[in-house]
């Protein structure tokens, strides 16, 4: 178990490879914040607490959309033009944080959003928002497959590769390319989310 913890979260490496500090794939300091967010969403859903549900949906959705747009359309293209060592160094600091932040904000947004839609009657077929909500489910579904099936595995594989005594630059470049393209696609899909959500809010 100690090996497991050390390998994944990089706790107390006795002798890190060379002079490079071992990358903490899952930053332990962020876990209490993620846990607090989970508890808050559970309380909001269990208590049918409208303000808390709205807060989780707006705050989580704003962060999620903003991060995806920024990473996909601003950071991604910049990363694509950096040298491999620069990309690797940036990723070593950036990706572990995203491992905690993204699942937390996505969970906050989706769980609270579904409850709000149910409470406001937007899920009923007779609601003018019904078809927009189905469209948003589809957009989120595509983003989930891209993020969970392609982007996140590549990010974590990059971090593991960088923890090796001799990281393979070619492999890191290949995996980072996957990150840059998929982040761009999810960034563009967030534009669709913005259109859908503003339609839902104004009908």
């Amino acid at each position: 178990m100690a090996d497991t913890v050390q390998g994944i979260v990089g706790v107390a490496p006795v002798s890190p490879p060379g002079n490079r500090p071992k990358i903490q794939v899952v930053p332990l300091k962020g876990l209490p914040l993620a846990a607090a967010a989970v508890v808050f969403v559970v309380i909001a859903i269990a208590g049918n607490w409208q303000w808390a549900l709205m807060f989780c949906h707006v705050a989580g959705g704003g962060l999620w959309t903003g991060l995806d747009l920024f990473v996909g359309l601003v950071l991604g293209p910049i990363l694509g033009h950096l040298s491999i060592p620069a990309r690797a160094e940036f990723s070593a600091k950036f990706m572990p944080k995203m491992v905690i932040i993204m699942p937390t904000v996505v969970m906050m947004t989706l769980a609270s959003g579904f409850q709000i839609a149910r409470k406001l009657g937007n899920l009923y077929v007779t609601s003018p928002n019904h078809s927009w909500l189905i469209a948003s489910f589809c957009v989120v579904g595509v983003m989930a497959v891209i993020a969970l099936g392609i982007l996140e595995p590549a990010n974590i594989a990059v971090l593991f590769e960088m923890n090796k005594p001799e990281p393979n630059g070619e492999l890191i470049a290949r995996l980072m390319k996957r990150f840059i393209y998929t982040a761009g696609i999810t960034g563009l899909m967030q534009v669709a989310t913005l259109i859908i959500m503003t339609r839902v809010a104004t009908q």
Partner: protein
Amino acid sequence: MSADTNPTTKSPIDRTFPPIAWMSTGALALVIIGGILMASYAPRKAPLGVATVLLVVAALLLASAGVLIGGLRDFPRKTFLKVFKWAIFADLVTAAMIEFAFVRDQTRGSSLLIVTGMLVIFTLCVPTTIAFTVARYADD
């Protein structure tokens, strides 16, 4: 089968593997489509036939990916299991939250059973994809 599923012993980057990550991602896509179908009918009862077919096909895809992983020789299983354990912990939290929301919304009976099945597949296929992607380039 092992002849098809054995990576050739080149450098980690050049090794070829069966499409395990694509299979588990395919299973994920199917349960997400099923989830959208179920959610789009809420609070009415969704037609369960299509959702059941999606669930069964997703389960078969994931099981096939598991069999293929089991048949791989020279595969870094230690790394695979290490990553799988941590990833499943994170996905369990997400799945539990979704299950809680459905139960809170009075989803019951066969609908709840199918949603639970989909969440089980979700909880297993994301860690499988992540762990396989990491392990295929690892050296235990």
